[in-house]
Each structure stands twice: as structure tokens, then as C-alpha cells.
């Protein structure tokens, strides 16, 4: 039960956090130069963006659930078992971020999910 609860927090926290951070990054705009000054300016703008902090909060929830889970479960189980986040992430990208997912991209995401699940079974 505690494994299922922690795993759900890891998966949903990751998806919610990453979708929220993506929204924040799109609001800030494309990084066009990799010069240190330009990257620092990008990070400063990110740190002032509320959506970024909401995303970091969800990722922190996911991270501490992951730490707890790793204390009684092997990395070889925990990391591959989070494969579900590929599907929840794709659904989140489509519904919350309005990204256009072509059939080719969906096929790739499903193959990745299946592959990660197989790696998990072999762990």
C-alpha cells in the first residue's frame, strides 16, 4: 500500500511538475544564446515566474516520495516503475499544454513506455 501511494505521488508529481515547468518556460520564451550571461538572465526570469515555483513544488513532492521509496525498494524497481509517467506526461502535454501529438509521436511514446516496463520486469 505504501509503495503504491509513494509511486503514485512520484508519477503524478513528476508529470504535474514538469507540465507546469514547461508552461513557465514557454512563457519566458526561447533561449537563443548559450552565453553564460544569457543563461543567467534566463534563470533569473525563471526564478521570478510563479508557475515555475508551482512546478518545483510538485517536483519536490515527487522527489521526496522517490527518496522514501528508494529507502525500501531497489533503484532497479523504482526508476523503471515510474514508466507510467510517460503516458500521463503525454496526456498532460496534449490536454494542458495543447501540444499536437502526431501518431508517430504517440507510437514512440508507447514503445518507450513498453520498453521501460520490460526493463522493469527484468530488474
Amino acid at each position, binding site marked *: 500500500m505504501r509503495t503504491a501511494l509513494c509511486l503514485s505521488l512520484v508519477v503524478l508529481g513528476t508529470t504535474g511538475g*514538469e*507540465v507546469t*515547468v*514547461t508552461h513557465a*518556460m*514557454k512563457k*519566458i*520564451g*526561447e*533561449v537563443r544564446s548559450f552565453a553564460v550571461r544569457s*543563461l543567467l538572465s*534566463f*534563470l533569473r526570469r*525563471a526564478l521570478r515566474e510563479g508557475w515555475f515555483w508551482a512546478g518545483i513544488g510538485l*517536483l519536490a513532492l515527487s*522527489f521526496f516520495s*522517490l*527518496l*522514501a521509496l*528508494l*529507502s*525500501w525498494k*531497489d*533503484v532497479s524497481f*523504482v*526508476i*523503471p516503475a515510474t514508466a507510467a*509517467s*510517460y503516458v500521463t*506526461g*503525454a496526456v*498532460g*502535454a*496534449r490536454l494542458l*499544454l495543447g*501540444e*499536437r*501529438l*502526431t501518431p*508517430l*509521436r504517440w*507510437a*514512440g*511514446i*508507447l*514503445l*518507450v*513506455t*513498453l*520498453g*521501460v*516496463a*520490460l*526493463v*522493469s*520486469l*527484468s*530488474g
Partner: protein
Amino acid sequence: MTSATSLQWKTYALLAPIVLFASTGNVLLGKGMKQVGEVQDWSPSGLGGLFVKTFINGWVWLGIGSLLLFLVSFMVVLSWADYSFVMPASAASYAVATLMSHWLLGELVTTLRWVGVAFICLGVALVTRTPSSSRG
């Protein structure tokens, strides 16, 4: 080079540190948390003690450092690329970790795991054939 092609190459260039730092960070955290030990006492004082043990563990800090570098690379690439592109493409970290454990650490990798890695590689190959940004 067209703008779309340049964007695609820029995305590939940032996927490399994402894959590297994500896999390294998770392995380091796993090593650290195994040293900390299993959560057995769920009382506030028990959890407090575990929290302290976790945050004085060097492997945990190396893992956190690696995951922070992953986060910055991830943030930068998401400023132009689709999340639904970056997320599955970064799963290449499973293939990299398996190859590293086999070739560098000499670990035995089962057939099932190789099949899983092949599926991941095929999936990543399909995803990376789509434009990295659906915004055009």
C-alpha cells in the same frame, strides 16, 4: 540551415546532458539512500532523524547536484521544444545506463532487459523523427 533544422539540432545537443545527468543522479541517489537505510520509524522524530541522515550523506548531495544540472538543461530545452518530445526522448538514459553497466561494470544484462532497451531505442527513434516543437 533552416530555422526548424537548427532548432532540431539545438534540441539534440541539450538532450545529451539531460540523459547523462538524469541517469547519473538517480544512480547516486539510490546508492546514498541505501546507505541511509529503510524508513522503519514513521514518527516525527524518526522521520526527522532520517531527514538529517539523508542530508549529511555525500552520495545524496552528488545525486542532487547531478539532478540540478539535469533540471537546468531540461528547463532550457523546454523553452522551445515540446514536453511530449523531450520527455520520451530523454528515456534514452535507460539504454545508456544499461550499456554502461554492461560494458563498464561488467554486469549481466538479461535478454528481457535487452528487449526492453531495444523498444526504448525504437521509441526514441520514432519520437525524434517528429519536429521538436509543434508550434512550428
